């Protein structure tokens, strides 16, 4: 059983939902980023989405755009992101999902990425701009199944397409909670619970995690009631941005993880 599966199995047994945390690797600096991520893992984060910054993040709102900019300025590269994953893996069994746009992976080499990410101890990869129509060119030559290719479903995804995406799912399904970029407002809980219900009905047991625009414990609690996990990203990045020179930033992030994690219990 891989780490993502055993994570959800453990959560099920405890009657909890997953708190999935997205952080841009290398923000605000490479060393500080590692401290932040360790603190978050120790504070009870269930799954880590490690973001690979891209110069042109078209699916992201201003907060993650700025965090990507800071991380690129700090000198982060995909190779360094995998080193961070490898370093974390020595001390934690938390599932790690590499979260990226396609171009950095294409430049790195698809097979090389599979090999190095698996060797670093990553468990999955989510590529925002690589829909099922195009993903075979990457995953088609992968020699094994050590990396789960995590797929996205959106509120605009028609039912048949949703079912087809669910059929090819691995790890968990990432349901985008709204039509918008990351960090935008206007979460419609009724709409998203309906979409989550339809997706779960055809997901054949693959866990469904909901993300985009979720920042408060109340939102986490509501969404956890109809999903298997909740993804928080921009809210963490906003905390980083507001405390760039604060030596207590890792502790603040840990505190935030604890509050949000409590809401999944």
């Amino acid at each position, binding site marked *: 059983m891989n780490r993502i599966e055993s994570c959800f199995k453990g959560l099920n047994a405890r009657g909890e939902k997953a708190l999935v945390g997205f952080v841009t690797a290398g923000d605000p600096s490479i060393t500080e980023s590692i401290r932040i991520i360790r603190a978050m893992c120790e504070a009870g984060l269930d799954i880590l989405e490690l973001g690979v910054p891209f110069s042109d993040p078209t699916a992201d709102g201003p907060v993650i755009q700025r965090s990507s900019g800071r991380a690129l300025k700090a000198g982060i590269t995909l190779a360094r992101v995998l080193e961070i994953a490898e370093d974390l893996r020595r001390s934690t069994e938390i599932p790690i999902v590499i979260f990226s746009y396609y171009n950095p992976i294409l430049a790195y080499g698809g097979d090389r990425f599979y090999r190095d990410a698996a060797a670093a101890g990553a468990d999955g990869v989510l590529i925002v701009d690589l829909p099922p129509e195009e993903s075979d060119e990457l995953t088609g030559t992968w020699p094994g199944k050590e990396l789960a290719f995590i797929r996205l479903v959106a509120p605009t995804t028609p039912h*048949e397409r949703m079912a087809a995406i669910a059929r090819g799912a691995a790890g968990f399904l990432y349901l985008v909670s709204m039509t918008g*970029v990351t960090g935008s407002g206007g979460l419609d809980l009724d709409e998203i619970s309906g979409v989550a219900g339809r997706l779960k009905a055809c997901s054949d047991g693959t866990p469904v995690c909901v993300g985009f625009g979720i920042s408060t414990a109340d939102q986490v609690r509501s969404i956890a009631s109809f999903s298997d996990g909740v993804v928080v990203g921009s809210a963490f990045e906003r905390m980083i941005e507001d405390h760039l020179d604060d030596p207590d930033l890792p502790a603040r992030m840990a505190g935030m993880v604890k509050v949000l994690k409590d809401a999944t219990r």
Partner: protein
Amino acid sequence: MRVEGHAAYDFKRQQDAGAFPDGRGHFGAFGGRYVAETLMPAILELETAYRRIAAREDFQVELGKLLRDYAGRPTPLFLAGRLSKKIGGASIYLKREDLAHTGAHKINNTLGQALLARWMGKKKVIAETGAGQHGVATATAAALFGMECKVFMGTEDVRRQAANVQRMRLLDAEVVPVASGTGTLKDAMNEALRYWVSAVRDTFYIIGSVAGPHPYPMMVRDFQRIIGDETRSQILEAEGRLPDVLVACVGGGSNAMGLFFPFLEDAVEMIGVEAAGLGISTGKHAVTLGAGSVGVLHGSKSYVLQDADGQILEAHSISAGLDYPGVGPEHAFLKETGRVRYESVEDGAALAAFKELCAMEGIIPALESSHALAHAFIEARKRSSSDLIVVNLSGRGDKDLGIVSGFGAGGE
């Protein structure tokens, strides 16, 4: 694992075989649909609507009337006699897209897409713009059809293309300045894509070049091919034969695709001209096909300017319309197959060609088109006087007077 009743859904279904792009929007190894899932349903809907509506005779008749009565088509094909004589060698014909309404070829595409939006029942349109020509052409079509229009434009371009910003506002469009990144065309396109994700249910995104996810490269090419179709009948009437060479500038590449496409099966040489800015060796250029590498940007796979880590680099050109680190995927395909040759021209040579055309023929060309002209001069000199070169004069240069006078080319 199969889900009952949905086995028919196939991500790789082919809608037509043989032609480019294929049914999945690929031109060989290029093109495709590299977008977030939130946008996938919208571009699939657009493709279906485009294939259904654009094939209808009544749609084509309506578009044809607009192009004739509103945009002023056909545009002339003009033999630049004094210029040809001065340059020496082949005869240079100019396809006068600068005479189309709004002053560039962009109107061909925006009328087509806005009309499609209307047939699809969409009342809001958005666009990205670099030099402002596509923004003006979109705002114009939106005004004509009574549609709400937002145009995303980098803050750097807002500054250097102030006249076009003013035109868009007069046409009742909202100009949204984009400060992220380098404040140029690629950032405007990023922001337009972000906005489209949030408004995808009622908004039509009018992309201005043969770039973006499928079906845009195909659709924009189809709306621009009128340039080549007219050129073919005009040169046959004037000379009784096809031209020897076609030359067009390439940023995203819509005016070049429009001119080239109807001639791809003929024995006609084609040259796409990229902007070499201050010179390829300085790193300050926009030579995507000539000096870039394969990557994915703005929804399709093509050549891009990028570093070793796959981060997109800033492009540079004196011409805002060519200042883009990507290029349409069909151009990448035509480069790989060798069907089209791609060359590049530096800022200085483009400025010199600009001045030459003003003085010799009384035509003020856009700086974009001046790149094509500059290379056509080199090509003409290598050829005999019986050879025919057609240059796509894709736009007029009024918008560039501020830039040109800054370089001492204003005649003082």
